[in-house]
């Protein structure tokens, strides 16, 4: 057997999860459709005045992204947990944190990245300017990985519990508030002609912080849930 490096392991886990996700494309699409649907409900709820919609666009898109990423988090570990793969992963000599990081990355590619790519189309429905759309996309690009990573902690803690999905949102959503604030703040700053650097810097800082700590915390949470 080829000796696998840390990076090799990471690539292996990501590739495996992506293949699995591609075999069940409907799951990926459901999340995306949910995102589109929630965003489209807002104009129906608050009325079609373009001035108001333009103002709330960033907030609506971000909240919808937050909700739809919660929707897919339940699947992060549950399939592997049910068929026993997760147990094998924990017995493996490789670092569990690294495996978890791989799963987080794959989860983001499947559930976060499509939202980032879809966001500008939906932004146009809200008459956002091109500049604002660009900032929104970069913000989502920095922010959605954090949602996947923080969400993974919740997914690991609620593994195999009844009513896990609702509980998961209850645990994770409050922790994601800073991401929401800085993500929407950046769009607001660019539309009112202010500098966006501070918002992106803070989002980047949160991303690095999450990247360092969440895989380890999630691994601990998995150990608690599986023992």
């Amino acid at each position: 057997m080829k000796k696998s490096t840390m990076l090799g392991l990471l690539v292996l886990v990501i590739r495996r999860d992506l293949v699995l996700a591609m075999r069940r494309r409907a799951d990926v699409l459901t999340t995306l459709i949910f995102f589109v649907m929630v965003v489209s409900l807002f104009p129906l709820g608050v009325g079609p005045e373009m001035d108001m919609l333009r103002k709330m666009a960033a907030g609506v898109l971000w909240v919808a992204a937050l909700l739809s990423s919660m929707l897919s988090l339940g699947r992060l570990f549950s399939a592997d947990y049910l068929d026993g793969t997760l147990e094998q992963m924990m017995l493996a000599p490789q670092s569990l944190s690294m495996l978890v990081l791989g799963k987080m990355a794959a989860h983001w590619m499947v559930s976060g990245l499509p939202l980032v790519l879809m966001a500008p189309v939906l932004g146009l429905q809200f008459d956002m300017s091109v500049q604002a759309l660009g900032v929104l996309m970069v913000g989502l690009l920095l922010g959605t990985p954090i949602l996947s990573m923080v969400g993974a902690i919740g997914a690991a803690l609620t593994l195999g519990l009844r009513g896990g999905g609702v509980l998961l949102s209850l645990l994770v959503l409050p922790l994601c508030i800073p991401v929401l604030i800085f993500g929407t703040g950046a769009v607001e700053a660019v539309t009112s002609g202010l500098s966006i650097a501070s918002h992106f810097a803070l989002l980047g800082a949160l991303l690095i912080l999450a990247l360092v700590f969440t895989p380890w915390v999630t691994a601990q949470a998995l150990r608690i849930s599986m023992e």
Partner: protein
Amino acid sequence: MAINWFKYSSPTTFYGLAGKMIPWFAIPAAILFAIGLYMGFFVAPVDAQQGEFYRIMFIHVPTSILSMFFYLIMAGYAALGLIFNTRLSAMMASAIAPTGALFTLISLLTGALWGKPMWGAWWIWDARMTSQLILLFLYFGFIALHASIDEPRRADRAAALLAIVGSVNVPIIYFSVKWWNTLHQGSTIKFSGTSMQITMQHTLLTMTIACWLYAIAVVLARVRSIILERERKTDWISELPEVRS
């Protein structure tokens, strides 16, 4: 003389100790509440700007301070439980959670009651109120996670990890909400600059200590119930006089 620091870290020994300690906190709490409320309602003068309404502060400020503080204490006990694997620490953490949530709720409600006559609105998206609301969500998350796991050991450890993650997040949330608020030009009404009259300060201090003592007494009583519930199958519980009768 060697002191056994861990003597009271076992539920068996702590159960008795907690029972003995409760009156020492509950009675002073009742006395201080009586003094504090009397001073708050009758002795403290009427505020020049806010009239009688400011008296809500005597219950609002202590609960607000303690609500945030209790989350950190809870996370501290949770961390102790994870590190040393002591059952009692986890029990303490889950005994603190409902009191912390209650104080957060009281602080929000009194804030709303005070806000209506002062700001003309029940709720304002002020940085402190918003972060208090998020704190309430964090408490709910802790309680809900603990309640939905049947196996006590896993529940303790999972909730402990959540509490620790939450406590790391509390400052991040607080500052992000603060910046968000200044970005959205929140309320401009602030307390800064107003020096408090000396009677008001004393009343506030009395009420804070009273709330604190009350919380300790209630937490001890609750941890006794938790011990009884969790250890109900052990011999020492069945030999307790209050269980036997």
